[in-house]
């Protein structure tokens, strides 16, 4: 990432408010991912007080969910501050991306000109899943984004291809997908030479205007982003079939010592 001129985001914040994790990303409050089934809700500290969110931005976010604006018809439901205040363990590192983009917008407001940025992060996220061979309650996500004028799907494809080539995957293709906060969205598939199968290795898209415009990012600036989990590709690459062999206290110390150096990208 650093080689590709990306700056690392500060992701050392596991407890996040629903506001930055969901609402700022234009993910509606009735979305199934915000269910207690999928998300860890924190009981102490239970919520982030609404006063701690930037007041005018908070208002614009609520408004775009309820009525739309910036060319959108919105979701047309009653947006509640109390939902946004609920604390959770972050479900994706995109929560940090939303904070960084907001900061970037504030910088634009202050300086009068927009500074294009490339950001990345690699850190832990949490999902309320039952633990089994391929699922854990916590895992790692890798995310990259580019904010600049006039970025298109073609640029996203080019950037994503460059990234995956750097980690040893050269044969990739894209499939239409859906995320609440990106449109267009693309799932990224790579050809696994050993298995001869196309496997899903990541997700990507262009952030929706309903997410970017309330932050104050100027018209014409778009943000392309992509992400992948670390555990799954590692399991495929190393032929590990139980995720608990890779991460957690049950990892075999002997395996750790004897595993050879990583030659990907050499």
């Amino acid at each position: 990432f650093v080689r590709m001129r990306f700056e690392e985001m500060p992701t050392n914040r596991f407890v996040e408010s629903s506001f930055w994790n969901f609402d700022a990303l234009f993910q509606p409050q009735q979305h199934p991912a915000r269910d207690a089934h999928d998300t860890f809700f924190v009981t102490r500290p239970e919520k982030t007080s609404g006063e701690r969110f930037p007041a005018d931005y908070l208002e614009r976010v609520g408004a775009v969910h309820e009525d739309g604006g910036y060319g959108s018809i919105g979701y047309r439901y009653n947006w509640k501050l109390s939902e946004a205040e609920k604390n959770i363990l972050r479900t994706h590192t995109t929560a940090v991306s939303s904070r960084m983009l907001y900061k970037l917008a504030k910088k634009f407001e202050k300086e009068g000109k927009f500074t294009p940025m490339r950001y990345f992060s690699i850190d832990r996220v949490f999902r309320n899943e039952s633990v089994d061979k391929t699922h854990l309650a916590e895992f790692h996500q890798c995310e990259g984004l580019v904010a600049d004028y006039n970025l298109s799907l073609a640029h996203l494809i080019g950037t994503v291809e460059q990234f995956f080539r750097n980690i040893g995957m050269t044969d990739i293709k894209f499939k239409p997908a859906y995320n609440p906060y990106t449109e267009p969205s693309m799932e990224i598939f790579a050809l696994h030479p050993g298995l001869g199968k196309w496997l899903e290795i990541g997700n990507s898209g262009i952030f929706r205007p309903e997410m970017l415009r309330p932050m104050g990012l100027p018209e014409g600036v778009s943000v392309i982003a992509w992400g992948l989990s670390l555990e799954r590709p590692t399991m495929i690459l190393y032929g590990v079939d139980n995720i608990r062999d890779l991460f957690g206290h049950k990892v075999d110390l002997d395996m750790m010592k004897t595993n050879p150096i990583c030659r990907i990208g050499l």
Partner: protein
Amino acid sequence: LSTSKELGKVYTDEEFEDVCFDFGIELDDVTTEKQMERNELGLSKSDMDVDNEEEEEIIYKIDIPANRYDLLCLEGISRALRIFQGKQETPTFVKEVVAGNEVQTMHIKPETALIRPHVVCATLRNVTFTAESYKSFIDLQDKLHQNLCRQRTLVAIGTHDLDTLKGPFRYEALPPEKIVFTPLKQTKDFNAKDLMEFYKTDQKLKQYLHIIEDSPVFPVIYDSNDTVLSLPPIINGAHSAITLDTKNVFIECTATDHTKANVVLNTVVTMFSQYCAKPFTVEPVNVVDQFGAERMYPNLDLVEFEVKQKDICKAIGVELSSEHISDLLRKMQLLVEPKEEETTGGSLIVKVPPTRSDILHACDIYEDVAIAWGYNNIVKQVPKTMTYGKEFPLNQLSDLLRAEMAMVGFTEILTWALCSLKENFEYVRREHLAETAVTIGNPKTLDFEVCRTSLLPCALKTLAANKDAPVPIKLFELSDVILISEEHETGAKNERRLLALFSGKESGFEVIHGVLNRIMQVLGVPVELGDKMTNPEAYSWKESQDKTFFPDRQATVMYKKKEIGIFGVVHPEVLKAFDIVYPCSALEINIEPFCFDQHGNEILE
């Protein structure tokens, strides 16, 4: 679905998978009814009856995007795919009253505002059901109930045989005892209060009872003969149940969310009006609300978006003419009317049909153009702007320290941040600190009650899980713990810690002490021996009485007058709690105070 019937030709599984891939849906599995049964029972092919296996209908399991409610049924998917392949034009849905029929009316009474304020309705005339389309009709309602309706809490659908009823209809909310009817699948009358009790043991319905059971009034729909159509969102009445012979269908969607009620109603009628004698016609229903205002439903109006041809090209990175864009959008069920100033590389008016409720903004239209063009046909470009790569300072520091720890012969571990209250406090003899941890509500796995406030329990668990490892065992972890902190925005913060653990035939106290000295050495922090703490840039240690460690064999680490960590021989009771046999020593320090640059300036916010 049968590809030959729905798509006009026979596809192999791979070909069909490719069609799905390009469109944006995923062919998850190809199976048969019998195979699914086998899978459920965990049997292999030879264990069950293989008679007639060849004649078994192939079932495709298709994953669809969560915002495409029009793809929740066979009718929707096949129609969308045919339009995508240019084999069919997008239907125009018409609101029409077929001669000889009267528009139905639904009156909303004010009390419904207490429990479930909205209802929208529509009528489908002269429908012909087959066994398959009937099943599909029921399945679609189920799927909508699970997804968009959020388990019926937001919207509930009721479908009825109109010929068994007599309008006008009333949507009321009454005390439960006053509502008496024979529900679907029953043969005798119940009042709604008893019905709630009755359904408490019903596997399918008990999960919906909570939506209304505590309300003083329950929602209910009557016709003019006082026949109960339904008790939303629980159950319909048996009287108006739809059968294979039903010709005229009355649909009512009660809701707490008006927008979603409309999407649900539109989805049902746009999908199943294809079976009406005059396909794609829907008979409107007049809904009179509590203030007397009248509105006709369903609202099948096309939603208009004005998009500029050059914005589309800029967004997807491909040059396309307005005409080409129109053709592409047609494949995605979006109709285009070019605006007059075509010479100015002008705008297009895109008309979105009721099947595409997922279109909220022009960017949704850009995506459809790109899908129709083919994502993999887009020629890639790379953004040319110069930016500067750099790591987050704390992470860069962490990586440098990890290397140093490995160089002194310690093995890195990476453990979970979530653990149980017992592990994090009781087992390490820190019960008095139980209130300092971030707690989780209803985790699926009971072990995950709190976020860790120390890396020590995690390392001890790793040790316990590796009893076969040869001693001495030297582990380290450099990772975050989570602490309650009111001054931080969310009320909690991460803290980056280094933990080192030694386990062997002897406790290794001097080894752990040596690790501390070495780490401080590579951090460039001088040591000050003794308690005086006169050098602000130095670190020191002093004896402590922490219960986790052995008395007289432990010390806290001090830096800039603050306690930043602790080290010592781990207390035998702690070892016992974790089921560890060999003695251990551990060091745990907060490394954030050491995140400064080469000039000594702090760089952590």
